């Protein structure tokens, strides 16, 4: 083969060029620009931006400072949400997939559609639907409780109900995704594994523990990691449903980052918070990945 001509290499480059430009303009440059901003006293409405070095980061790590409070309470609220939601998203997602697989074939598709439908709607639509469902006076849930002679619950304004509401809406909205991935994995476990185990006299639970779980392990880890990342990025639910309340108890980190930038107009410190938040997400997923795959079997 002769070495391809300059012109040929140029044509090849032209094919990647549109995407490459977009990649640079809306991903690479923003990331670098964000780092630049985080080293400046960058006010949203001002034109002069003073270089302040690591000041924004130092403030975030200085106990007692405003930024420290914003970052740590936001982070703690986010972590709480992750801890409450991820186990349920994984376990119930798998449970739904197992249930689906046990149903007669001709109704399986229908039920899959039912469980998966909420995933197709927008976060803002989801939030408005649940604002109505959770409404203290006119809401569906309290109406149901009244029928059972149970006192109304302040779903969106009282602890610990705010967390219950946020987790419930999250499950309703996103669990279909996990279910689909699990269903796909379950279908790929070879049928004859189960047959062999049945002949050996293994009961359903034993077959689940010794065949199903090990076979779907990689997918399980994928789900744990993606659910953790998604829950770390939670925004629509607390932003629109509880508005971070009561007090600041459900105000998650992403809300604090955007408020610092758009309400406080301090884009510099907000960017520093955003970068730290991104680092935490990347580190947590890397650790999960390491625990999952680093262990020798």
């Amino acid at each position: 083969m002769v070495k391809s001509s300059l012109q040929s290499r140029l044509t090849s480059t032209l094919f990647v060029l549109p995407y490459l430009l977009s990649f640079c303009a809306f991903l690479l440059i923003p990331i670098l620009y964000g780092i630049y901003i985080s080293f400046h006293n960058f006010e949203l409405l001002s034109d002069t931006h003073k270089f302040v070095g690591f000041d924004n980061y130092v403030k975030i790590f200085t106990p007692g400072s405003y930024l420290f409070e914003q970052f740590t309470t936001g982070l703690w609220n986010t972590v709480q949400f992750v801890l409450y939601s991820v186990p349920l998203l994984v376990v119930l997602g798998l449970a739904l997939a197992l249930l689906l697989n046990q149903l007669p074939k001709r109704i399986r598709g229908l039920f899959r559609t039912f469980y998966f439908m909420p995933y197709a709607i927008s976060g803002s639509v989801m939030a408005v639907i649940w604002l109505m469902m959770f409404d203290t006076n006119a809401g569906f849930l309290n109406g149901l409780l009244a029928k059972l002679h149970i006192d109304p619950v302040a779903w969106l304004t009282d602890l610990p109900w705010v967390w219950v509401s946020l987790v419930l809406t999250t499950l309703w909205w996103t669990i279909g995704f996990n279910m689909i991935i699990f269903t796909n994995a379950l279908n790929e476990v070879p049928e004859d594994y189960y047959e062999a185990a049945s002949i050996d006299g293994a009961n359903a639970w034993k077959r689940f523990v010794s065949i199903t779980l090990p076979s779907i392990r990689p997918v399980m880890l994928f789900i744990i990691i993606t659910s953790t990342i998604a829950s770390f990025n939670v925004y629509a639910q607390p932003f629109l449903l509880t508005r971070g309340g009561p007090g600041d108890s459900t105000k998650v980190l992403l809300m604090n980052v955007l408020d610092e930038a758009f309400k406080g107009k301090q884009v510099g410190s907000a960017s520093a918070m955003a970068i730290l938040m991104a680092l935490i997400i990347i580190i947590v997923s890397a650790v999960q990945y390491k625990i999952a795959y680093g262990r020798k079997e």
Partner: protein
Amino acid sequence: MKKTLLVLVAVIIAVIFLLPLIWMLSTSFKNDFEALAGQMSLIPKKPTFENYLDGLKGNLMNVPITRWISNSLFVGAAGTAIVLLFSSMAAYALARLQDLPFKKLMFPMFIGSMMIPGVLTFLPMYMEFNALGWINTYAALILPYSSGAFGVFLLFQFFTAFPKEIEEAARIDGANKWQIYSRILLPASVSIMVTLAIFTFMGIYNDFVWPLYSTTSPEMRTITAGIAMMAQGSYTQAYGKLMSMTVIATLPVFIIFIVGQRSFVKAITQAGVK
């Protein structure tokens, strides 16, 4: 016996999943009084189309709903078209063009970018568009979505698996790269392109956070950002009216979802294979 019990459980869960959606539909036909009365009437006592008619006439809570929905459909369609074009061209070059410079550098960079949390780019992207004077324009609503690498990743896998012989034969017949891409690879990848289109359209159409911050005037809002705006405002308890808006907002995605569910499922399971 065991089967009937399972079906029963499945039905109960289905009711739980569908109830909020059915309640949304039912409430959208109630007047504000009935919607707020806390009565548990699934069928509205006095069904009314007023919420919808007012919405279409533009005097529902003084917001331009028809404009919002048009914005959403336009932004979704334009964004999807750009993603399809850019990703398929890039994926073709990365998968089939041996003499593409820096291939070994670009491919891992693109794929790795899918791991980057959105929070890292959100603020600086806003500042970038602000500096360009592009806040509150369609460019701001459309362009950011074109940098996603998922389409490149999906199509790369497809193009890599495409038989070499057909391409060889075309080249011997004198076809150039552009002709091979547009006349051979694209027509052969209609189904995967539809999958990517559905996935991309739903993603753009449903995103409300970026449009909420990157638009400033009412007529530039997308329907999802508009609804988020209303949910924060003073109309939060006008449930009859709000629900007619959410029904309108949800209709396009539900139609696409029901029709294209197989494709949509394929796209997300593809993502899960990584």
